[in-house]
């Protein structure tokens, strides 16, 4: 056993010190909850339901399940196993597999850092809305008045109070990405408080994270349940649910659906960030990581499904309310134009009245320009991402009784979902830094975590500018997508072909006590890398087809409140490419660097 031990702890330097000083989880539950918290994030609430809706409801679950089984779970199992086995963060793990692959760890480090920057800005926005939920009425209910109190501000009149509150009072968004608009002080305050909240949980690494996650991971489920119960009692909820779950099998023929399912499961599980490797590295080596992977993967997918139900019930309710408002405005127009008695026309007898009036005076009816009210149109108005949380949901909340309570609950839930994901991002930065041993040992951990938070806050001030939202979209699209796919592909190739699938399986057998069965082996060797490659190529192909444009909110635009579509200027497009390429550049660079060293020593040996 001793020899096996030595063999097992091979290229790790400072092993003795490592097993003494390496922090560890208080118990298994803490570890599982942290991994679940990292995987379950904002995307489960605002991306998955949107995809379900757009891609034909129940039918989307099929490509999603296939992607989970053949791509998500194998990669998750692989990351957890390798982290647990080699007991290091991403840099340490890949360096020990092969020094040439050390760049993978550095790439993960950069991606985690960059994603953490903009992710916390979203948390800052959530905090802003949370702080504003303690007013009656909620500030996004009504338009503010203009200077002489005769009417509402025109930009708000043309669009809606909810849109105005988000774009003008929260973001104070500029008309395009070139106009920076200066730092918005209230957003700086919110960002600072978001980083302080993250810091206080992260201050001692997993020691404090482990305590915080008991609350931040379980509370969202409680809130989702409360929302579920409330949402099901709202009128129109069943319309939303039927709409969500009615399968439209036609969509399965569209390859875009499969691509989106694969990317969704990949990003949802937070793979390739290095955070999962870091978390599992604090485990005891004899731990059943297969069951861990299955638990985390399945809980993540279950959460997505569970979250879609109240979201869609509430969206159905909102669509219903908008439909009723539309009908009522038509009724009022008819009533006023034809001087019919007040409330004689109701939504029930509207059709008869309309026919009667149209028959008696068609030209007048036509001149009124009545709106066509179709419930389906309102249900089709889907939104994902920040649009769902800050525009659609806030609109729904003001129509619900007890708006302040629902608003507070919703934003606290979103904040906790995001916070537990931030822990993973930051661990993906902290653990590799400690592994690289670039940090002098006299720097206490509290100071190091503080410095990481402070630096991230400083760089993240970009997102508090007037053009901040446009920059965030760029970061989200270019950092949080392609680099991760590349890293994951190289991860699986490294483990299966460089480390060796045989050695890996033996390690797992030593750790868990049983060999992973044929299913896992086929996935790791063939199916998952193939899927990743196809997804990567399809992603690049699709992205290159679409022209690089973005939408802006500009009240001076001719067709306002429609969003104007602009092209990125050259320097911005260059930054986009830089963001995609820079993190993964370290992979070939580190390999090249090690190759040069190898050549040097080879030549020196030849000389002797």
């Amino acid at each position, binding site marked *: 056993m001793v020899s096996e031990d030595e063999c097992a702890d091979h290229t790790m330097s400072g092993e003795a010190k490592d097993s003494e000083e390496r922090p560890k989880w208080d118990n298994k539950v803490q570890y599982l909850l942290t991994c679940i918290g990292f995987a379950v994030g904002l995307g489960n609430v605002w991306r998955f339901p949107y995809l379900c809706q757009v891609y034909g409801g129940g039918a989307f679950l099929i490509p999603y399940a296939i992607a989970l089984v053949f791509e998500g779970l194998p990669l998750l199992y692989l990351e957890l196993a390798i982290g647990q086995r080699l007991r290091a963060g991403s840099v340490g793990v890949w360096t020990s597999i092969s020094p040439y692959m050390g760049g993978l760890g550095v790439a993960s480090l950069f991606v985690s850092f960059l994603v953490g920057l903009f992710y916390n800005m979203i948390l800052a926005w959530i905090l802003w809305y949370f702080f504003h939920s303690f007013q009656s009425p909620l500030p996004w209910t009504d338009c503010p008045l203009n200077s002489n109190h005769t009417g509402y501000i025109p930009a708000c009149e043309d669009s809606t109070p909810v849109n105005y509150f988000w774009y003008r009072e929260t973001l104070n968004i500029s008309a395009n990405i070139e106009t920076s608009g200066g730092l918005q002080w209230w957003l700086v305050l919110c960002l600072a408080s978001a980083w302080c909240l993250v810091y206080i949980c992260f201050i*001692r690494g997993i020691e404090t994270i482990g305590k915080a996650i008991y609350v931040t991971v379980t509370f969202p489920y409680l809130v989702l349940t409360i929302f579920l119960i409330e949402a099901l009692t709202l009128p129109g909820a069943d319309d939303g649910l039927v709409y969500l779950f009615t399968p439209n099998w036609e969509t399965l023929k569209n390859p875009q659906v499969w691509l989106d399912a694969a990317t969704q499961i990949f990003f949802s599980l937070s793979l390739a960030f290095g955070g999962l490797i870091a978390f599992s590295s604090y485990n005891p080596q004899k731990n059943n990581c297969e069951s861990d992977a299955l638990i985390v993967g399945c809980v993540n997918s279950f959460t997505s499904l569970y979250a879609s139900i109240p979201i869609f019930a509430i969206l159905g309710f909102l669509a219903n309310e908008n439909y009723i408002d539309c009908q009522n405005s038509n009724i009022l127009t008819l009533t006023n134009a034809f001087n019919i008695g007040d*409330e004689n026309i109701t939504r029930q007898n509207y059709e008869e009245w309309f026919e009667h009036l149209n028959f008696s005076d068609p030209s007048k009816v036509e001149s009124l320009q009545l709106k066509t009210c179709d419930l389906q149109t309102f249900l089709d108005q889907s939104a994902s991402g920040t649009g769902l949380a800050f525009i659609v949901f806030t609109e729904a909340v003001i129509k619900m009784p007890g708006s302040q309570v629902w608003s507070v609950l919703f934003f606290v839930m979103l904040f906790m979902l995001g916070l537990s994901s931030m822990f993973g991002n930051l661990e993906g930065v902290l653990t590799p830094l400690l592994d690289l041993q670039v940090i002098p040992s006299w720097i206490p951990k509290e100071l190091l975590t503080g410095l990481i938070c402070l630096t991230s806050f400083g760089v993240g001030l970009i997102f508090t500018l007037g053009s901040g939202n446009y920059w965030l979209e760029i970061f989200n699209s270019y950092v949080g997508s392609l680099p991760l796919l590349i890293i994951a592909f190289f991860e699986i190739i490294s483990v299966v072909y460089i480390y060796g699938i045989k050695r890996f399986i033996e390690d797992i057998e030593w750790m868990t006590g049983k060999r992973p069965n044929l299913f896992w082996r086929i996935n790791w060797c063939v199916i998952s890398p193939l899927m990743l490659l196809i997804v990567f190529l399809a992603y690049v192909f699709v992205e290159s087809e679409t022209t690089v444009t973005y939408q802006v909110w500009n009240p001076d635009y001719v067709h306002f409140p429609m969003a104007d579509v602009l092209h990125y200027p050259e320097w911005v497009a260059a930054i986009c490419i830089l963001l995609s390429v820079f993190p993964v550049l370290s992979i070939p660079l580190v390999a090249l660097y090690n190759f040069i060293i190898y050549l040097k020593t080879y030549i020196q040996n030849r000389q002797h």
Partner: protein
Amino acid sequence: MLEKLLILLFASNVLAQVCMPDAPEAYKVRLSIKTALGDQAYTWNDNELYLFRATLAFAMRNYLSGQLFDVSNILVCNETERVSFWFMVKSVTNPTTLIEKQHVENAIKESRHRINSAFLLTDQTLEFLGILPTLASPFVPATPPWLIAFGVVMGVVGAGIVYFLVAAVVQRKRKKTLDEEEEAKGATENEIAGENLDGIYNTSFSDDEKVTEM
């Protein structure tokens, strides 16, 4: 010829005293009683109209102080089922002329609240078409409420961070003094039993392996 002129003049005077929709001095009023009051809606009848004319006369009296407007100065026409009608205001000083729109508008704006209350209606349910209601300015507290919430959260977080940092510093100091004591002790202890009470951590027997493989 002269008679025709006289008839024309007389006719125009009479016309001036007859309420007409879309006349330059006329306003349209629209009431939505059922929408406002639901079950407790009263039925609109001539008496209610009389009250309306009286309220308008009251508003005109308030605005043009000195001129004693009466119900007969308020002309009403084109009543509909909607409950909407047109009205015009005859001048007190000169019964053949009508009060200009601007004066009527100002009078109504001043006494809008009283007129609404007389009918238990609001600005939205008692509409004077063309006269925009002055919107009530929202209550703006001295400190924005969000800053208060922000202050509370930051206060708690700040206290927590300070606590953690102080605890870390205290812990480090304690460890330092313990290490120093141990070093001082270690010289003497080794002489005693040659056994370090704390023991040396032997990695071969680390607690990580729960299952010993033979």
